[in-house]
Structures are given as structure tokens and as C-alpha cells.
């Protein structure tokens, strides 16, 4: 090694690439399964130093509150934050609050007992839950001798066993590799899913992308044995040079017509299941959402570039995809889908209220839900959600409103984000 240096240039990053080769495009593989990747918090600054436009918004209660008067008349007494009714409809399901548990797929971070603990708690809370892609092709469905508790069937059962009547629902995601494994068909005709199907609480989610790595499919790190088992179905790349390999799903190819027809196919083949569509924060997100809603999707989810994942190349969370606030702005301008769900670094009431004010129906908990369940597998998510619900009631009530769907653009303000047009 020479003593050459380049002050002001990311010298150490260049040297790391020179040492590690392709592996340097990713976080250290030892972090796989133990770290959740995605946009960082960084106070209210993004990693590039810019202020996150959603965080930059302020929630702005009015002084004069006709909706509070209406609630006062309704109740015959002064309303307070406890009078905020959080229950809402999410993609055809009824949820206790405008929150659902985002897709958790086959990465090790979401696998095993943690996935089950999360499913049980989400079920007990009556929150809709998405079961992410690649669980079946990697862990199996649970009826062919695989460990059922690690497979899709385990998560489905853990959720359904705790679910109160009339609340919640499961959306089962599918990627290209899942399509090969016929995941939707397996679920649709499985007796274990029948109670959900018959009570209208089963949805299928067509995944077009995810916030932490727009344009890429699911990625995991596998040891050589595990890689050999799935090598006929996934792309394997020996980027780490230590026996572990990168396993990639194909992201799938979509045009407006392909999206439209796949949704129609879902409605035709699975008429008793709801149809959800998940989009990454692409520059044409408003157009894609419009196509999905027009083709009959019951919910369109947008995962902002602040979204998280179990594994992602470092360039993606840092530099790829539109911020969630910009997605919301573009969709508001184009006419948002009737049931818009958003996710991306949601963990406290402020971001949730801002998202709802900008047109979302509900928000997804990804990393927050996993960490809460990891903190306490019995009740971590339950307690986390109690705190979130209280914050939501306080914030919505402060705006003189008493239901999540009463929030609108007037409820937020930002000098720093002129891209969101002023109300009126």
C-alpha cells in the first residue's frame, strides 16, 4: 500500500472497494439477519444532510374548529382526545387504527420466532398484516413436512388464532418466485385460510417494489448449503468471497398493461380475496397508482424511499427513490387512489398524522413492528401500538378532528417544502 492520499475525497470508501471488490456495495455480511437496513433517522436530517420533507412538515391545529363543535353537539359535552375514533377501513379490512403491519418476507431478520411473535401480536391487536414475498419458496408453505411454524402456514395460523371477530386481515404478497410456487393458489384453497377467506379478511398483494431498494427484488445472504437448495429458483452471486452468497429475486417486469392485467387476473382467479398492490417510490408512482386503482385494486401501498428491509445495497437507501412526501404530493396532484397506504420510517404519531393529512388512509409499520416484537415477543408490539394510538388521538384531537379520515392538507405546513402545494 502506498502512502497516497486524497483529502476531501471518500478515500477510505475507495480503499474498502479496492480491498473487498463487489462485496463493498453491500453492508458487511455479518450484519445480515441482525440489522434492519433503510433510511436513517438522523435527527430530522437525511443521510445526505437534507431535511426529510415529511419530517419538515409541521402539524398545524386551527383556532376555530367547526368539527369540534359538531362532535360537541354529538356528545353533549366537550370532546377530548379520548373521543377520537381510530378504527378505519384498510383495503377492505376493518382495523382498530389506521395502521397495518408491513410485509416481512423471508429474510433472516423476520424469520422464525420473531415472525411468529409479530403475527400473534398483530392478530391480537386486530391490525391487518402483510406476509411478505419468498416465504414459501424459501421456507415452504408448511404442509409438505417443513417446519410449519417457520413457513407461511405458521404465520397465518399464529395471526388467525388471536384475531378478534370483525377486525384485521392478512394480505399475502407474491413475487415472481412465489408465482412459481403458486403461493396465492396454495393459500386460497387451504383449509387454514378458509375462516379468513369466508369472513372477507384475506387479500393478495401484488408486489412491484419496495422503498429501500426500488427497482430490485428481494435480497438475502445465504450460506453455501442454503444457496444450493434454492439455486434453481434464484439468482446467486458470490460477491462476498467467503462462502456466503447474495441471493436475489427478480423484481418482475411491469408496464401499465401488465399491471392492469395482473390485477384483473387476481380478481378473476381469486374473487373472494381482496387485491392489494405495493409500489416502490418510482418517479411514475402516481401513474402506477392510478392504473392499479383503475384496474380494481382495493388498496395501493407506496413504500417511500425511507422504507426498510432486511438487506439492501448501500447505494439504494441513500440515493434511490422519491421521498415519501414527494410521492404523496404527486399522487395528490394526480388524484390519489381511494385507499392509499404508505410506509417508510413510521414509528411515532407525527409522521402518521402527516401522511394521513397528505392523503393516505393508513400507514405500515415495518422496522418498528419488528423491533417492538424483538423487544418483547409477548407484548412489545401491543405496548408500542398503545403508545402510538395515544399519540394519534392527541394529535388528531388537537386538530379539532375526531377520525383519521377527517385529516386533510390544511392540517400540515412547511416553509421548507414548497413542493407540497399550499392548500386552496
Amino acid at each position, binding site marked *: 500500500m502506498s502512502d497516497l492520499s486524497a483529502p476531501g475525497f471518500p478515500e477510505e470508501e475507495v480503499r474498502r472497494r479496492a480491498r473487498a471488490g463487489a462485496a463493498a456495495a453491500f453492508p458487511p455480511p455479518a450484519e445480515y439477519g441482525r440489522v434492519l437496513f433503510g433510511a436513517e433517522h438522523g435527527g430530522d436530517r437525511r443521510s445526505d444532510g437534507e431535511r426529510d420533507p415529511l419530517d419538515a412538515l409541521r402539524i398545524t391545529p386551527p383556532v376555530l374548529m367547526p368539527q369540534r363543535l359538531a362532535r360537541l353537539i354529538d356528545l353533549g359535552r366537550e370532546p377530548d382526545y379520548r373521543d377520537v375514533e381510530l378504527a378505519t377501513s384498510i383495503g377492505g379490512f376493518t382495523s382498530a387504527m389506521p395502521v397495518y403491519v408491513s410485509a416481512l418476507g423471508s429474510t433472516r431478520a423476520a424469520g422464525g420466532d420473531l415472525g411468529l411473535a409479530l403475527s400473534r401480536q398483530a392478530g391480537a391487536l386486530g391490525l391487518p398484516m402483510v406476509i411478505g414475498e419468498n416465504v414459501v419458496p424459501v421456507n415452504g408453505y408448511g404442509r409438505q413436512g417443513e417446519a410449519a411454524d417457520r413457513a407461511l402456514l405458521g404465520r397465518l395460523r399464529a395471526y388467525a388464532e388471536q384475531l378478534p371477530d370483525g377486525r384485521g386481515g392478512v394480505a399475502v404478497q407474491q413475487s415472481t418466485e412465489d408465482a*412459481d410456487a403458486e403461493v396465492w393458489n396454495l393459500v386460497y*384453497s387451504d383449509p387454514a385460510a378458509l375462516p379468513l377467506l369466508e369472513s372477507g379478511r384475506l387479500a393478495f398483494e401484488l408486489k412491484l417494489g419496495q422503498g429501500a431498494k426500488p427497482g430490485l427484488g428481494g435480497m438475502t445472504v445465504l450460506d453455501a448449503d442454503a444457496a444450493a437448495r434454492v439455486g434453481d429458483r434464484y439468482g446467486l452471486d458470490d460477491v462476498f468471497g467467503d462462502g456466503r452468497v447474495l441471493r436475489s429475486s427478480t423484481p418482475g417486469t411491469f408496464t401499465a398493461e*401488465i399491471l392492469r392485467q*395482473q390485477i384483473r387476473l387476481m380478481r*378473476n*382467479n381469486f374473487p373472494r380475496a381482496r387485491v392489494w398492490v405495493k409500489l416502490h417510490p418510482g418517479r411514475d408512482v402516481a401513474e402506477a397508482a392510478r392504473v392499479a386503482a383503475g384496474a380494481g385494486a382495493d388498496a395501493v401501498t407506496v413504500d417511500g424511499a425511507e422504507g426498510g428491509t432486511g438487506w439492501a445495497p448501500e447505494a439504494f437507501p441513500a440515493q434511490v427513490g422519491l421521498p415519501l412526501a414527494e410521492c404523496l404530493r404527486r399522487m395528490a396532484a394526480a388524484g390519489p387512489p381511494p385507499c392509499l397506504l404508505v410506509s417508510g420510517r413510521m414509528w411515532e404519531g407525527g409522521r402518521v398524522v402527516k401522511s394521513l393529512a397528505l392523503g393516505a388512509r393508513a400507514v405500515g409499520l415495518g422496522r418498528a413492528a419488528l423491533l417492538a416484537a424483538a423487544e418483547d415477543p409477548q407484548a412489545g408490539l401491543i405496548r408500542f401500538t398503545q403508545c402510538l394510538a395515544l399519540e394519534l388521538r392527541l394529535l388528531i384531537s388537537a386538530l379539532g378532528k375526531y377520525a383519521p379520515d377527517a385529516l386533510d392538507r390544511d392540517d400540515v405546513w412547511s416553509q421548507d417544502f414548497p413542493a407540497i402545494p399550499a392548500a386552496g
Partner: protein
Amino acid sequence: MTTDGHTAPAAAPIPDPGRHLTAPATRSALRIQHQLLFAAREFLRRRGFTELLPPIIGPVTDPGSRGSKQVDVDFYGHRYKLMTSAILYKQASLLAFDKIFCIAPNVRLEPLETAGTSRHLAEFHQLDVEMAGASRDDAVRLVEELVVHMVDSTVRELPKEFAELGRDTAAFTQLLKGSFGRMQHNEAVAELRGLGHPQSPDAELDWDGEALLSARRDRPFFVTDYPKGSRGFYDREDPERPGLLKNFDLIAAEGYGELCSGSQRTNDYAEIVTRMRETGENPQKYRWYLDLVREGVPGSAGFGIGVERLTRYVAGLDAVWQASAFPKLAGVVSP
């Protein structure tokens, strides 16, 4: 009997195999089926079709539809499928013969709710026909003539069986005149909606809808021009009417529902790959088929008649399982 303690909806009880096989009604129905197939072979051979024996397993098969799923088998360490339809092999066969037919076994694990529809079997047979260089309308005309011949032959040959089943063959008076009715999918949707049935305009006709239309007619009829998104990737899109497919169903009279599906096929490689994506399929799985298409398979049209469904209709049976010697219904454990 079903698994996990959930009961399949309204499944008609199937007697044990011995009693079912030896019941006079079963024997009459199976004789009618035998005659229908005899007549079909006679008709198709006379028209220059070659009968091929179709494969039962392969790396891919026709993608599932309406929630039915495929059965995987371990083929020397590779995941193979039991055939849900002979369609891909029918197209491939045209590299050797211009006109082929086969009587193909199919397995589709239908959703549990089909156990009570009276017209779904998890294992069934299809009379499959494919002809090179043919149009959708050629296929429609051939089905019409074929069905008339099959029913005519059976009615003439087996009066005793019809009498034993209590099936009045006067039910076929209109059918035997030929010239089945024709309506487009959008007309079928309009008629159903007029009857208060909430039929989706961009989906296949649902089972109740088909039965409703079927019950209002005294002879079989064709529904044509289904919307894209309601069918498999191989039905050709009408270049003059984008979004509509050059396909058809043949639906029986008297409420018996669908008997046959067919179409003019897409044989353009890029179009097939695109349509595979539109139907949620992974082209990688269809490598052998796509390689053949890339090299060139002839344009064609064809159809598949559900043998047990046709038998049920002709014999006037309550349920399609009565037209099978060893019936298998969704979710019902049976030999």
C-alpha cells in the same frame, strides 16, 4: 371428509366406489360417455385429425385459473407438474401434424367451494383439438358440428340408457338442428346485469352467471370475445379490438353451464412473453415451450371439451362426479 376440520360446502355425498360403479345410473352414464367419445373419434378421424397420446407430467403446464392449483411431482429431483391442460403440448404437436386431437387426463386442485358447484372435478378428462392455420371461427364451427355429431350418435345408439336415466332426448331437438347461439362476452355481462346478477365486465363469467344464462336457453350457445385478463396467455388478442381475445366458451342449455373453452392461439414469441407477464407467469419456467415458439410454431386454433361435463349434460345428471367412474371432488378424500 376434509382436512383441518373444515367442511367443504354442500358437497354431494359420493357413494363408495363399488356401489357407485355398479349403480345402474353410473353404468348408463359411462356408456353414454363411451359413445360420445367413440363418435368424436369417428368424426375427427374422418376430418383428417390424428389422435396423439398426451403427456401426463412436464416441467410446466397450463397456469392455474379461478383459484385452482397444480400438483407438483418429484421428477428425479426436478419439480414437475401434473397436466392441468394439454394446451402447450397441443401447440407443439402442430410441428408434426396439422390437425390433432387427444383425450387428455387433467388434474386441477380446485378451491374447496367447487365441491358444491356440481360441475367441478379435481381429476377430469378433456377432448382436446388443435388445428394449424385455423381461426377462432373455424374452431367454433368445428365444435358445433362435433357436438351435434356426438350427441346425435349417442341419442340414436343408446335409447335404453337414456330411458333408464329418465333423460328425455327431446331436450336435444334444438341442439341437433346445429347453429348454436352466439353472444359476445359483453352481451352476456349485460344480460346478467339485467337479471340482477353482478357480473364483472372484465372477468370470466362466474359459475352462477354461466348457470343463469344456461338455464334461459334450450340449446347450447357460444360466448365469445372474453376480455384480456380473464384467460391464459395463449389466447390471441384481437388486433382490431385490443383488450378482447379471440376465444370462446361453449355453454350448455338447461343450466348445465360451460362445456368447452377454446381460442385462436397466439404464436408470436414477444407477444407470448408479454402475455405471460400479464398473467403473472414467470417465462423462465416455460423455457422449452418458448424455445419452440421462438423457432416458430404455426398459428392455430383449438379447444377442449370437458368429457365428464358433456356426459353430465347429455345424460342429464345432477352432478358432474356422476359422470366419472372414480370421481374426485375438491377436498374430498376419495380413491
